[in-house]
C-alpha cells in the first residue's frame, strides 16, 4: 500500500459469526422479574389450536455474547463519527448527541399516542414548535409532519396535488420528472396514480425551460423538481418554471433533498414552489442509522392546506393543543399515529441548537463543496461549468481512458479511509462522482479527501490495477453480487450453516 494513505491504516478487528451460530440451549440474555400473579399455562389459556411450540432456531445467548456480537459487528462499519461521507444528496452531517439524549427522556420516549390530550401537551408543543420552525425555514404556509421518509413525503405531496386538482374538476394525468431525478420521484408518481413523463435536462443539467414550455399541457398535474438540482446547481430560472406551470394550472413540487444548500439563505416558498418535502435525516441531522428511520414532512401553500393528511395539529379555543381527525377534504391518513415522533424530536433539538444561525451551516456546506471542487478540477472531469452549491459532480471521463471507472475509484477511496461518494447518479452524467461534504467536515478532513482523490487519480494513470481491484484493506473484498441475486440466500437456516465464521 502506498504511503500516500494518511487517514487510515490496517488494524486487527474481531471476527464474528451469525448469532444463531453461537446459540446453545439454556443461555439467556434477559431475566424478567418474577410473576406477581398466578402463572397461567399458555396452551391451556389459548387452546391447542392457538398455542405455539418452541420457536425453532431462535437464538439462545447470554448478555455478554450479545454485547460482543454487536460490538464486533459495529467495528466493521464506517460511520460519520469516524470520518466524512462525501455522498452526494445524502447530506451525511454530524448527528448531535443531545438529540439522542432528549429523545430518550422519560416523558418523551414513554408516551402513548392514544393517551388523553391533557397528558400529551408536551408532545403536541414539540410538534407545534417544529412546524413553526420548518414553515419559517421554507417560507411555506402549512405543514404535515406525518410522512415517515422522503419518499412518503413525495407521495403525500402528490396526493395533495391530486386532491386539489380533483377539487377543481380534473386531477389530470401526468407528472413531469427530470431525467436527473432521484428514483423515488417516478416510483412515487406511479403510486399516486399518475403517468410519468420524462423531461430531458439541457446541457448544463438544468431543467430545459423551452422544452418545459412545450411539455406542460392541461394533462400535466405537476413538475417534480429538485433544487439545487442533483448536479448541485441552483435552478436559476425557477421562478420562470413556476410561472409556466401555474399558467397552465399545474403545480410545482420540490424534492427538498438538497435543502442543505438553502436553509437560511433562500426559501422555496419565495421562489414559486407550491408543495415540497424535507428529509429530516438529511438537512436536519437525524441519524441515518444504517438506512433509517427518517421523516419527510411536507410543506405547502395555503390552497393545499384543506387536503392535509390526518391528524392535523390544531389549537383549541382554550389554547391547548389537539389532533384533529375530522377533516372532510383530507387525503386521509398516510400512516398510523402522527409520524416518526422520535425523529421529529431530534430535528427540533437540532433546529433549536442553531436558531437563526442555521445560515452558517449552509454557508459552511457550500464553502466545503466549492473548496473540494476547486482542488479537484483539473484532476477529475467537470461535466458542467455552472457554479456548485453544496455538492459537486465530476465524471470519470479522464480515468476511463485507463480503464478505471467511478466505481473503481470509489472502492479505492475506501483504502484511503473514506466512504465512497455517490457513484453513477445522477443518470444524466455518465460515470458520475457526486461529492457532498456537508458543513460537518473540517478543512483538515476536506484536505485529506482531496489528497486521497488526487492520489487515486495518479494511480489510475500509473497503476490502474490497484484501483480496479480495490478495496484491499477491508475484511471482505468485492462481494459476488451476481451470485447473491441468482441464488438468493435471505435468511439463516440450521442445515445450511456449513460456512464457518470468518
Amino acid at each position, binding site marked *: 500500500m502506498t504511503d500516500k494513505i494518511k487517514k487510515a491504516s490496517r488494524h486487527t478487528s474481531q471476527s464474528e459469526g451469525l448469532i444463531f451460530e453461537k446459540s446453545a440451549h439454556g443461555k439467556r440474555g434477559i431475566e424478567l422479574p418474577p410473576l406477581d400473579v398466578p402463572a397461567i399455562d399458555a396452551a391451556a389459556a389459548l387452546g391447542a389450536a392457538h398455542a405455539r411450540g418452541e420457536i425453532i432456531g431462535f437464538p439462545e445467548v447470554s448478555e455478554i455474547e450479545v*454485547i460482543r456480537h454487536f460490538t464486533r*459487528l*459495529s467495528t466493521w462499519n464506517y460511520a460519520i463519527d469516524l470520518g466524512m461521507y462525501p455522498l452526494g444528496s445524502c447530506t451525511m452531517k454530524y448527528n448531535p448527541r443531545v438529540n439522542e439524549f432528549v429523545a430518550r427522556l422519560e416523558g418523551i420516549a414513554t408516551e402513548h399516542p392514544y393517551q388523553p390530550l391533557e397528558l400529551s401537551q408536551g408532545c403536541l408543543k414539540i410538534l407545534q414548535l417544529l412546524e413553526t420552525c420548518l414553515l419559517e425555514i421554507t417560507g411555506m404556509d402549512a405543514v404535515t409532519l406525518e410522512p415517515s421518509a422522503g419518499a412518503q413525503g413525495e407521495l403525500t405531496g402528490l396526493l395533495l396535488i391530486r386532491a386539489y386538482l380533483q377539487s377543481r374538476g380534473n386531477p389530470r394525468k401526468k407528472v413531469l420528472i427530470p431525467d436527473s431525478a432521484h428514483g423515488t420521484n417516478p416510483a412515487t408518481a406511479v403510486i399516486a396514480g399518475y403517468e410519468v413523463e420524462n423531461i430531458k435536462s439541457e446541457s448544463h443539467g438544468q431543467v430545459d425551460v423551452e422544452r418545459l414550455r412545450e411539455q406542460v399541457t392541461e394533462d400535466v398535474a405537476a413538475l417534480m423538481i429538485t433544487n439545487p438540482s442533483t448536479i448541485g446547481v441552483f435552478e436559476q430560472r*425557477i421562478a420562470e418554471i413556476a410561472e409556466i406551470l401555474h399558467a397552465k394550472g399545474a403545480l410545482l413540487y420540490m424534492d427538498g433533498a438538497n435543502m442543505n444548500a438553502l436553509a437560511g439563505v433562500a426559501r422555496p416558498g419565495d421562489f414559486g414552489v407550491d408543495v415540497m418535502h424535507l428529509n429530516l435525516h438529511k438537512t436536519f441531522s437525524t441519524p441515518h*442509522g444504517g*438506512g433509517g428511520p427518517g421523516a419527510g414532512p411536507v410543506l405547502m401553500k395555503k390552497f393545499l392546506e384543506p387536503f392535509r393528511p390526518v391528524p392535523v395539529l390544531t389549537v383549541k379555543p382554550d389554547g391547548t393543543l389537539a389532533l384533529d381527525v375530522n377533516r372532510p377534504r383530507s387525503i386521509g391518513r*398516510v400512516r398510523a399515529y402522527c409520524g416518526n415522533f422520535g425523529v421529529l424530536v431530534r430535528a427540533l433539538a437540532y433546529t433549536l441548537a442553531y436558531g437563526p444561525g442555521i445560515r452558517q451551516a449552509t454557508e459552511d456546506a457550500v464553502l466545503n463543496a466549492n473548496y473540494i471542487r476547486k482542488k479537484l478540477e483539473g484532476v477529475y472531469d467537470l461535466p458542467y461549468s455552472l457554479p456548485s452549491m453544496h455538492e459537486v459532480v465530476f465524471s470519470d471521463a479522464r480515468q476511463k481512458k485507463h480503464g478505471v471507472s467511478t466505481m473503481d475509484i470509489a472502492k479505492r477511496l*475506501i483504502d484511503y479511509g473514506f466512504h465512497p461518494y455517490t457513484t453513477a447518479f445522477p443518470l444524466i452524467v455518465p460515470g458520475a462522482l457526486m461529492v457532498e461534504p456537508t458543513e460537518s467536515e473540517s*478543512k483538515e478532513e476536506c484536505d485529506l479527501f482531496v489528497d486521497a482523490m488526487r492520489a487515486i487519480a495518479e494511480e489510475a494513470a500509473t497503476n490502474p490495477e490497484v484501483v480496479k481491484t480495490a478495496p484491499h484493506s477491508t475484511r471482505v473484498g468485492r*462481494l459476488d453480487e451476481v451470485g447473491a441475486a441468482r441464488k438468493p440466500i435471505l435468511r439463516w437456516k440450521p442445515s445450511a450453516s456449513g460456512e464457518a465464521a470468518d
Partner: protein
Amino acid sequence: MRYLPKSPSERQEMLAAIGAKSIEELFASIPAAHRLKTPLRLPGPLSEMEIIEFFKARAAENSVGYTSFLGAGVYNHHRSVVTDALLQRGEFLTSYTPYQAEISQGTLQAIFEFQSLMCQLTGQEVANASMYDGSTALTEAALMAERVTGRSRVLMARSVHPEYRQVLATYARNSGLQVEEIAFTASGQLDAAALRSAVSSEVAAVIVQSPNFFGVLEEIPALAEIAHAKEALLVVGITEGVSLGAVRPPAEADIVAMEGQSFGLTPSYGGPFVGVIASREKYVRQMPGRLTGQTVDAQGRRGFVLTLATREQHIRREKATSNICTNQALCALAATMHLCLLGKEGLREQAQQNLSKARFALAELEKIPGVRRAFPGAFFNEFVIELPRSVKLVNAALLRDKIIGPLALGVFYPELSKRGLVCVTETTTRVEMERFAASLRRALAQPLE
C-alpha cells in the same frame, strides 16, 4: 457553533483557495430576488443545557406518573439497557445505508439476522429489512398481493386496526385497488360466513389481523382455506409481536405484515417503529423494501450484500415494487438486539407473563358489578370490557386516580361507545391492576352526573 469544525481563519483560507472574496459570492447563482436579506426568525440558538431543559419541561407536561392500560398497536414492554448501549455506538447510529458492502458488513449482517428472526417468528420463508411501520407494511402487503395475483380487490376485516385500514384506504384510492370491509361477529372475530360469500376470483387478498384490534385471535387456518379456495392470498397483520412467543404463527398466510415495536422500541408517541413484510420465497421478487443476502468474496469469505435491488426505486424507478428508500434500519437493529437478548426462552416467558397478567386483570375487573367481558374469543394480552356507561366518562374519573384507562372503542367504532380495550403486559404490576379495579369500581359506583 459547536457543530461546525471551522475557525474564522480557516474559512478565509478556503475562500482564498477558491478565489472568492466572500461567502456571498458562492451564492451568486441564486437570483438576488430569492436571496434572504435578513436572518430567519427562529428560536435559539440554545446551548446543550438549554435544549435539555426545554425538552424536560415538555416531558413534564405529558403523562409521567400515570399508569396506563393502553395497547391498541403500541405496547409497553421491558427493554434492556443493553439495547441502547449498543444502539448508540456511532458505527451503528451514524452509518449510512449499506450500499458499499465492504465497509458496511456490521449493518448487513445484523439485517440478515433481523430477516432470519422475523422468518422464525412468523413461520414465513423470507422477510424484508423493514417498512416504516405496521400500517404501511399492511398496505404494501395488499399492493403486493395485487401484483402477485393480478387482481384488484381486497377484503379487509373490520377487526383490523382502524388506523391501518385508513392508511390502506389512502393508498387504494389512487391505485384503483378496491377495498371491501367484512364485519366482525359477537365473538369479536371476522365473520367467516360473510367472508365466504364475499370471496371471489376477483379478490387478490383477504386481510386480517391476529390478535385483532379487540385482542381476539382469529382462526387463521379456516380463513386461509376460504381465501385459497378462490386463489386469493391471505394477508395477516400482527401488531403485538410478543404474542408470537405463545401464539402459533400464521403459517398458512401468504404474506405477514408485522409491527415490531414490541421488540425493544419505546412507544415514543407513535414512532419511529418498524414494519416487516414476510412471505413465501416464490413471491420474493414482488416484495417491497430492501433485502440482504448472503454471498462470498473472491477469496470465499462469507459476506452480506443488499440484493434483488432491481425491485427497488433506484433501479426500477416507475416500475418499482414500492417507492420506499429510507426504511427503519436502526429500529430493526434495536429489535434484533432485543430479540437476541430475550432469546427463545425469554420471549416464551415474556409471552406467558402477558397471558397470566392479562387474565388476572380480567378476573379482577369481572368482579366489579356492571363490568363484563365483550368479544369472548381466545386472547393474548388485550381484551374488551363492556361498561354500563360511556367509557370516556369513566376514563375521566380514572384519570383523577392517575390511571389511563381502556381505549374507548367508540372513537373508532361508533356502535361500541360502552366498550373499552384493556391492555396488560408483563410491565403491569399486580398492585397497579388492583388499583385499576378499585378505581373503576369507585367510578361506576358514582351516580351519573
